[in-house]
Each structure stands twice: as structure tokens, then as C-alpha cells.
């Protein structure tokens, strides 16, 4: 069964710094990968997703993620973060083809002025 792991628990960046959050997955057949974001006091919402095709996926708010099969990774990136990007970010995937998503432990991003 596919699982995901996030190794960064808390990342602190200054505004305008570049962001890369790690997500590794364990291979389990067809790869479907997601990033969700949870802004303070809000519910989770979808940032971007990968099913197949172009390994570079663009999402909302300037975020992108690259699927690298050889590294089993799906890292989230943003060239220049803003204070409003302060949130918790979750990588997710279905354990197998017909099951609900399982989520990584999350990475808390704090952007400071």
C-alpha cells in the first residue's frame, strides 16, 4: 500500500525566501499524489495534485510540485513566499487504487517579515 512521509515538521522562512517542502511516497502501483493546505483556523483545501503526465504540477497561489519517480518524491515548491503562506501543508495519497486518502504528518510553515 502506498504511504507518504513528510520529514520537515516546522519550517520558518523570511518573506521572499524560496520554499521547498519534502514529501516521499512508497511505491504502490498507480501514483496519485496531493498537497493540501490548512491556513490558521481554517479547514484543509487542495493546493495541487498529480495523476500522470507532466511531472511538474502547478497549483493555486503560485505553488508547484515536481514528481520525481526515481527519488519517490513529490516536493512542494514556491519561489518566493509571503506572510499569507503561513499554514500547515499536508502531502496525501491513496494507499491503493480504491481507498480514501491518507495524509502525511504535515509541515508547519511560518513566514516572518
Amino acid at each position, binding site marked *: 500500500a502506498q504511504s507518504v512521509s513528510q520529514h520537515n515538521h516546522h519550517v520558518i522562512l523570511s518573506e521572499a525566501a524560496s520554499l521547498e517542502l519534502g514529501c516521499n511516497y512508497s511505491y504502490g502501483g498507480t501514483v496519485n499524489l496531493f498537497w493540501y493546505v490548512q491556513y490558521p483556523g481554517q*479547514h484543509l483545501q487542495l493546493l495541487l*495534485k498529480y495523476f500522470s503526465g507532466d511531472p511538474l504540477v502547478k497549483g493555486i497561489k503560485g505553488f508547484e510540485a515536481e514528481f520525481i519517480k526515481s527519488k519517490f518524491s513529490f516536493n512542494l515548491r514556491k519561489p518566493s513566499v509571503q506572510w499569507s503562506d503561513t499554514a500547515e501543508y*499536508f502531502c496525501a495519497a*491513496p494507499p491503493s487504487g480504491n481507498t*480514501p*486518502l491518507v495524509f502525511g*504528518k*504535515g509541515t508547519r510553515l511560518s513566514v516572518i517579515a
Partner: protein
Amino acid sequence: NAGVTQTPKFRILKIGQSMTLQCAQDMNHNYMYWYRQDPGMGLKLIYYSVGAGITDKGEVPNGYNVSRSTTEDFPLRLELAAPSQTSVYFCASSYSLTDYNSPLHFGNGTRLTVT
């Protein structure tokens, strides 16, 4: 169109008490889910449902029960509350389970404290 609505927003329970967390969606989604979120642990799936009358266990079902008598509602019941059930509970719904163009729509969560 309210999306996914959870009630209550906050609740404090004493050990051994019971309660039901309510979840309703108005998007005519067949699939509904309950997750719990604990600090540093991400979200864990408690139960899910693929349609009215059908429910299935997730990763952490012990201590919880669910029912799905209508498409719209998916309540989560705690029979004998324990401190380990202190958490934030999120209900979610989706149009499809396998069509990953169908994202999860989350409610705003219920923060439960058991003391």
C-alpha cells in the same frame, strides 16, 4: 450552497460521556469521511462511507461508530469518551473515491476535549 457543515465547533466532555458529532453536506456527494487531526500526527481516517447505508473502517476506528442513513448526513458517535479522543475532528466529502479530479471538501472541524 453551504458545502460541508459540522456541529458543534467546540465541545468539552467528561470521561465516559457520549456524544455525536454532526456532519452534513449539500453537494450530493456519495463519499463522506471522518478524520481526526492531532498535533504533529497529520490526519488519520476514522471511518468513511461510499453511500447511504454503507460504511467502512479507516485507520483508527476504535472507540467510534458511524451511520449513514441519508446521502447528506454522516454523524460520528463517541460512546465512552476517553482522553485519547481529545482531538480536532474533520468531516469531508467527495464526488468520487477513484476519480482524483474530485477533491475532498472539508468542514471547519470540531475541537473536542475529553477531561
